[in-house]
């Protein structure tokens, strides 16, 4: 029997997630001697718990885990610990991370991403010489309660304080979907007199909003600055077409990291427990905006290398 790697994935709710799944699947299935047991929980916590329990029954060798919510994993993860199965936490990390044993944790920094979104807009305005102009910002949130929404909102709001010229005039949920992003933007354009910046907590909502902005007779990317998140291919296209301004990367390509970690694990190395954040970029129309932790890259330059 091969080395059994079990992966409990949240679901297939977006392009990002699909890319994430594909990356990990490809990496593990491509590795000689490894067998992947994959479970997709369809965005349901209970399904994930069931899957984890099932993995234990099957006696897998290592479990990759990302939780649909941040809470409520203690019990089942302890069970995993009890059975001495190494646990690899990826992407969305559980709140109980301090109380359980894991071999490594790897995931995006949602708060930082949220901060970057606002910071990009702020710096961009400064670069345009509009640094002192009063601008109205709307924040289009993701599905309420999802850890990405919680983290990014925290980052968004914290960063807004750094830019006194920005005022939040709207903050509602577009549920991470294009359709709702579109409908929400449509309404905002009517209820709010002036919108200068749209911070959309994922690219899908931003892409939806672009259509609504066009329908309102405004020019997306010019009249309204649009900052998305995730950096999916469609967002790159929109940026290159000049309809969107920037997207903050949140990479789904965990495959290489996962393989490396598991190999180390098999080799018997001890791993550090500090949470590792992947290197992520910021992509925009022209590049060169300095956000402190990262400098933005021109989207058109890298669009051909994008995998998802």
């Amino acid at each position, binding site marked *: 029997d091969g080395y059994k790697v*079990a992966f409990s994935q949240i*679901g*297939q709710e977006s392009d990002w997630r699909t890319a994430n799944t594909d990356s990990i699947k490809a990496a593990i299935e491509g590795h000689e001697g490894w*067998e*992947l*047991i*994959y*479970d*997709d*929980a*369809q965005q*349901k*916590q*209970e*399904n994930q*718990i*069931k*899957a984890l*329990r*099932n*993995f*234990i*029954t*099957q*006696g897998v060798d290592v479990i990759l885990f990302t939780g649909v*919510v*941040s*809470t*409520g994993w*203690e*019990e089942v993860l*302890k069970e995993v610990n*009890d*059975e001495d199965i190494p646990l690899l936490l990826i992407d969305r990390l559980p*709140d*109980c991370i301090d109380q359980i044993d894991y071999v490594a944790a790897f995931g995006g920094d949602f708060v930082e991403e949220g901060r970057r979104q606002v910071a990009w807009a702020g710096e961009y305005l400064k670069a345009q010489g509009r640094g002192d102009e009063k601008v109205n910002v709307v924040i289009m949130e993701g*599905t*309420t*309660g999802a850890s990405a929404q*919680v983290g990014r909102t925290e980052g968004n709001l914290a960063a807004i304080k750094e830019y006194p010229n920005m005022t939040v005039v709207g903050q509602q949920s577009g549920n991470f979907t294009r359709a709702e992003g579109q409908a929400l933007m449509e309404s905002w354009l009517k209820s709010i007199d002036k919108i200068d910046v749209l911070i959309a907590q994922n690219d899908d909502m931003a892409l939806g909003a672009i259509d609504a902005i066009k329908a309102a007779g405004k020019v997306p990317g010019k009249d309204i600055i649009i900052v998305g998140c995730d950096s999916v291919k469609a967002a790159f296209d929109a940026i290159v077409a000049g309809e969107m301004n920037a997207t903050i990367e949140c990479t789904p390509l965990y495959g290489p990291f996962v393989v490396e970690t598991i190999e180390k694990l098999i080799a018997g190395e001890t791993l550090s427990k500090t949470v590792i954040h992947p290197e992520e970029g910021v992509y925009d129309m022209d590049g060169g905006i300095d956000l402190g932790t990262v400098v933005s890259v021109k989207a058109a330059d890298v669009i051909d290398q994008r995998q998802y």
Partner: protein
Amino acid sequence: MMSDNRNSSGRSLISSILNPKFIMVYATVGIFLVIYLFGVVAYGSKGFTTLRTFTNLFVDNAYYGISAVGMTMVLITGGIDLSVGAVASLTGMFIAYGTAVLGLNPWVCIAFSLVVGVGLGLLMGWVIHYLNVPPFITTLTGMFLARGVCALISRESIEIKNETIDALASWKLYFMYLKDGEWTRIRPSAFVNFNVILFLVVLAVGIYLLQRTRFGRNIYAIGGNEQSAKLMGLPVGRTKVLVYGFNGLCSVLAGIAYALYVKSGWNLSLQGAELDVITCAVIGGTLLTGGEGYMIGTLFGVLLKSMIPALITFNGNLLSWWGKIATGLLLLLFICIQKIVVSSTERRNSKSKKAAKNKA
């Protein structure tokens, strides 16, 4: 276990075991066994045959089961309740918010949830019966309301950190065996927890209520023909209101079980659970037209429905959506069986009508 097999003579015992009204239950059990056997053959080597797989069916689905008990009653009256998932979710939220944010005693939260859940159930029952609003619409509104309140309380998932809850959640009864004079857990460990016990208790209460009390028989009568039940002098209004109240209670208990299961409250948890619960009951042989259904059937319905995702996970390579498709097919299969059984008993009925008539 069932109602009528307490007949005095042996002849009637056999005849009541063979009573066509139990056929659907047998069908459920039969399909369960077939699929279980399939699992054994296909994934036996992966650990499907372990006791753990079986106990996990209970441990992982106790909250569905608890809710399905109440739902079965509602369905037998000929009604439907779409609010169960939302009420359960709301219960989790009350417990999480109450203990984590307000620092209340969990029992206070549970008591409060019971008042709200049962109250909402009773209210919906009242609206359904006395205002004559269809159950589908009434309970859909109830679902919106419960979800809405849930989201108003908190939109983030709240972790439950409380000693009492922790103790309840982590209490487990392991299956042991004697090895070298010492009790050892079987491997992979199999256990039952508080939720399973709660489920079995609720199930027992459900059986008792349905088969051994006037209240339960009134439920069947209402499902058989509400107008007749009324003319027979049965307390139709009261019974219906109480049934929705009881279902509210079950939803709250399911919510508690779910909260113990995930130890958190989240406003989006258990979305779509109502249809899963209804599916369990239907697979268990309960008719949505009312008047037919047994708790035992529902139990097997729950086990059957939860075995499908388990099999998909054992396979480990299928898109989980195949699970959905398999559930749909199972439903189809089941209804076909139901159809065949019903039409064959009807045929038998018409023959026996002839016989009875001749005798008379």
